[in-house]
């Protein structure tokens, strides 16, 4: 049965014979979105293994390298990394693993990068975005096709299918967000700039003074003043921001707080990015169209 299935697939010309004979291409990823994008590019094509390096429950921002994770890097052929500040730990880990043949795939290499709200660094959260996800999915597809030319057509088709699905979610959200009654918001986390820009929304301020840092009482007071002065009514927060601090914003400035996922932890899954971005889109529609 299995033999006849393989013969059938080969007869369709979808999988070249060489792909079945080649050794498995082992591709690591550092962040959850990269796992979703890479597994969707690979799809059911044979001979490519996608391997997350970080434990699923740990946000890359809180991660400390562990020996067992360095071992996962030792036999990789390639790895997809952020490379602009979200996974700075990975290059020393690769060096420690002794893997000198590994190909580094940098989907951010051609991604337009915004500045962080605070400071002069680029905003490394390029992955919380539909547009960037599509662009970076194609970047991963092209990098994998270079490593497995015999699978190029299949990889390209899978990437295009995935791009189409992401674009559908975005288009449906855009149709609703075109009616937004609120178009200026404050975010707790500086990671939502790319996503909000896609829907023509403006970030009036960011609560965290830097990525992962809790604001001081003075900074929180300044934010309350900004919210009142600018008449901002919606704050988008991340899941892990202290509720006590959010309560200050709610009580003092009368804002409503909504949670936007930055897809940083939880079980690795091919559909994780689509599901969480759909949820984010629904949250934005509720916050900016339905609730006001």
């Amino acid at each position, binding site marked *: 049965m299995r033999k006849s299935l393989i013969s059938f697939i080969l007869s369709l010309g979808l999988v070249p014979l060489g792909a079945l004979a080649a050794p498995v291409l082992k591709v690591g990823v550092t962040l959850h979105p990269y796992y979703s994008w890479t597994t969707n590019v690979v799809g059911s094509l044979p001979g490519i293994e996608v391997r997350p390096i970080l434990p699923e429950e740990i946000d890359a921002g809180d991660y400390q390298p562990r020996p067992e994770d360095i071992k996962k890097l030792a036999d990789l052929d390639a790895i997809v990394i952020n490379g*602009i500040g979200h996974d700075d730990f990975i290059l020393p880990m690769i060096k420690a693993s002794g893997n000198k043949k590994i190909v580094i795939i940098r989907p951010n*290499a051609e*991604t*337009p990068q915004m500045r962080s709200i605070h400071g002069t660094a*680029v905003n490394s959260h390029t992955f919380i975005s539909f547009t960037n996800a599509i662009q970076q999915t194609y970047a991963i597809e092209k990098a994998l096709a270079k490593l497995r030319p015999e699978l190029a057509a299949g990889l*390209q088709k899978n990437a295009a299918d995935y791009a*189409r699905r992401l674009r559908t979610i975005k288009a449906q959200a*855009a149709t609703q967000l075109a009616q937004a009654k609120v178009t200026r918001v404050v975010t707790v986390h500086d990671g939502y700039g790319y996503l909000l820009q*896609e829907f*023509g929304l403006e970030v009036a301020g960011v609560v965290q003074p830097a990525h992962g840092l809790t604001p001081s009482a003075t900074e929180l007071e300044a934010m309350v003043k900004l919210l009142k002065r600018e008449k901002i009514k919606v704050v988008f927060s991340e899941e892990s921001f202290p509720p006590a601090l959010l309560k200050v914003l709610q009580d003092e400035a009368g804002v409503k707080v909504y949670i936007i996922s930055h897809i940083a932890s939880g079980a690795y899954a091919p559909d994780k990015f689509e599901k969480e971005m759909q949820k984010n889109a629904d949250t934005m529609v509720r916050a900016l169209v339905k609730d006001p």
Partner: protein
Amino acid sequence: MEIKPPSARREAANVLRMAAVILIATWIYLANTAVPRAGLAAGQGLIAYQKLFRNLEPREQRMFRALREGLLEAENVRSASGSWPAPAALAGQGIPPFAADPIASREKYTWTFHQEGPLVNYLGLPAAAHLPAFLLSIQEPTPGATPDTAPNDEQHHRLANGDVLHVAVWMHGEGAKLSDVLYGQPESTGWTQLLAGSEGSQ
């Protein structure tokens, strides 16, 4: 041998001289460190007609991002079929910026396609006079030319058959005054080339 008594005036002059030396040294240090950073942020190393993504207005950034996405999809069609898709075909698949954009419904653009030999243009002219025009320019390899060995980057895209395209996104501040024609050398007709200028490319 005469030994001069200590002079308060000379001592004060020495202190002032040392203070001046410290001030000048500090100024030189700051000039050598702070100024280059500011220059990079503003796009040091760019040619006069180029501008970095990070220095664009949010509305322009949004269009730039959409154009980069549209370019990838157009390249996919070019790779598969050998010819470039018309803007209407891309719009029909919901591909930005060619598809109708409900978010920017007041900022309507008309997209046209032009091709002359190896030069390809996707030109977006605005309906409103205050909006800029946008242009996606693509140069295909000249037939018979030596294969381009440039590595893939923002301005060099390799098709599935190995052909290397030279691609660029352009913006023109006086969009409403422009003619709907092919722009072979956009820099000579007032266009500004927009660059992602991304970090993390190596």
